[in-house]
């Protein structure tokens, strides 16, 4: 079991995960953000690997990625930063990014490094499932990394079942047909979708993401799924204050987890 699987083994409900872009706001922000999140009791983290053309992302993550690349962030550097942090934090980490930089780094070399520097899993949203099965699955297994796949309200039941079969940590439930960072409360459409997922009795926990930005969206995800991932809203806090601990506290207030 990797650290992420271990976490899901022990904690079934009300998971809170944050996403941030490595190299943002500054090139060496990564360690401070991870430490601050652990201290604040965040359950696990997605470390975003910046990409020049993030197709599925809205303006906030786009801008953080552009900035991180300008700052000089690379995958190599990220691994060095994570290596230096090893043993200092225990919060489970996932690496999230687009496939092209991973391919250029070398898929196997990437997974070997990811595993060696303490990552529990990878989210590569543009990796096709058939290619995962044919070319990547054995590598994930070899390096004890969990693959995390996205599903949306438009994903068919059949495909969700296939994804459930291939997953061993959690399924990433994209809340609506949208790019990241949409600020809208969850409505009837999300409830129907969450109920549909619940009734499928999947073996993996369901973690909701895209649009988690306030108390309402967090609570809806917590009540209907096993947890929530918050990304753009966190990056906005990080943009507003250089102090990562303060940014997490501010975010928790917005999410209704802390009184003013």
């Amino acid at each position, binding site marked *: 079991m990797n650290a992420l699987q271990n976490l899901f083994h022990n904690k079934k409900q009300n998971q809170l995960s944050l996403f941030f872009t490595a190299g943002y706001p500054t090139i060496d922000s990564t360690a401070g953000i991870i430490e601050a999140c652990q201290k604040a009791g965040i359950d696990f983290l997605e470390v975003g690997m910046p990409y020049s053309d993030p197709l599925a992302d809205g303006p906030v993550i786009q801008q953080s990625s552009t900035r991180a*690349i300008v700052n000089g962030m690379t995958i190599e550097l990220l691994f060095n930063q994570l290596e230096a942090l090893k043993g200092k934090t225990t919060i489970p980490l996932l690496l999230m990014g687009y496939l092209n930089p991973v391919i*250029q780094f070398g898929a196997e070399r990437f997974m070997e490094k990811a595993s060696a520097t303490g990552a529990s899993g990878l989210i590569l949203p543009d990796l096709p499932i058939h290619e995962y099965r044919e070319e990547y699955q054995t590598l994930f297994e070899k390096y004890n990394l969990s693959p995390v796949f996205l599903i949306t309200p438009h994903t068919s039941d059949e495909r969700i079942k296939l994804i459930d079969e291939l997953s061993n940590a959690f399924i990433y439930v994209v809340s609506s047909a949208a790019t990241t960072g949409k600020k809208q409360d969850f409505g009837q459409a999300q409830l129907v979708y969450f109920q549909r997922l619940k009734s499928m009795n999947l073996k993996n926990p369901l973690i909701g993401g895209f649009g988690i930005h306030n108390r309402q969206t967090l609570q809806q995800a917590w009540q209907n799924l096993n947890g929530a991932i918050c990304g753009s809203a966190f990056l906005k806090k990080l943009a507003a204050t250089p102090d990562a601990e303060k940014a997490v506290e501010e975010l928790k207030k917005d999410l209704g987890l802390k009184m003013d």
Partner: protein
Amino acid sequence: MTVKFDTNPTEVKRNQNIPDERGYYGGFGGAYIPEMLYPNVEELRNNYLQVIESADFRKEFELLLRDYVGRPTPLYYAGNLSETYGAKIYLKREDLCHTGAHKLNSVVGQALIARHLNKPRIIAETGAGQHGVASATVCALMKIPCTVFMGSKDIVRQQANVLRMKMLGAEVIAVESGSKTLKDATNEAIRHWINHPDDTYYLIGSTIGPHPYPDLVARLQSVISEEIQSQLMKQEGKDYPDYVLACAGGGSNAAGAFFHFIGNGKTRLIGTEAAGEGVDSGLTAATIYSGTPGIIHGCKTLLMQTSDGQVMEAHSVSAGLDYPGIGPMHAHLHTTGLAQYLPVTDTEALDAAQMLSREEGIIPALETAHAVAALSKLQFKPDDVVVICLSGRGDKDLQTYQQYFQEI
């Protein structure tokens, strides 16, 4: 520069113009898309062949191509050029299509598909504005609301086409992100599609994007080489040329002009790509020359990227070729030697535009001028039959031409 052909031109290879079931041309193609796009792309993949091969579609498509687009376009024997370059040079006059470029061929077909899939609105990306104008045109005809994404840099350099799109009733959205050119216009169109999956058809302008788009666009544009075959049969008594020259941005006019000749063992297929200020200047869009395998806009192909896998910004005076990737079919044709790709600089293209204007009384689009420029890079035998795909007309580029020719 004289091109050396390493491949044996008489080698015959069949079926290299269509991808396998998953959309791969050799090692290039596929569909590298986030789950948000999967259902839409899957819907198109499951339907496109059946639709475009159906009798109803063929009938409607062919009628529109004939009476609305103005097909077949002439295959014009360019006597003056032939004399200058010592070969039998023909121009395939795609510039005479309604709206002034080959783009309309694919737009007509895709709009019919959108209607078949019950998608009530259309979005498109555009670089030079020709695909945007073609989309706006067909959407006006078919009464479909149309939104076009265009980089703000391209909006400035292709003003005439922006005005045309607006006149036709399309909404033009200026893209301010990244390069502010075709690459980022495509990103924004895809993002918009992610946010509007139910009612929107994404009408891609070239042989790029996730499978099935490259194949769909290539098949719709293949009317170009189909016509060349029968026109040459009448005019030259043979149904293939010795050379086809076409410019390649994403590669749709080249794919269409090459389609029926790919792997025939007889025709030398020459694509030209925009070298900008020179292939090694750092300001280039010569993807085949300076690119490496990777993923851009949902397909595996050759692209200009850093060693970290970040997509680089392209540079070309021609908005339609200013793209850091190339369609996967061309990456495959290049890798297998079934076609050759030549870099052509901004200056060479501008000079070729003036040359063609003065020699034949035809002002080409800047994109097209890159194909014309290949004439002086090749050595022909006197009875070689050479077809240049004259992909578009130059009205939209007069401002650029004027600026350049005033400067020198």
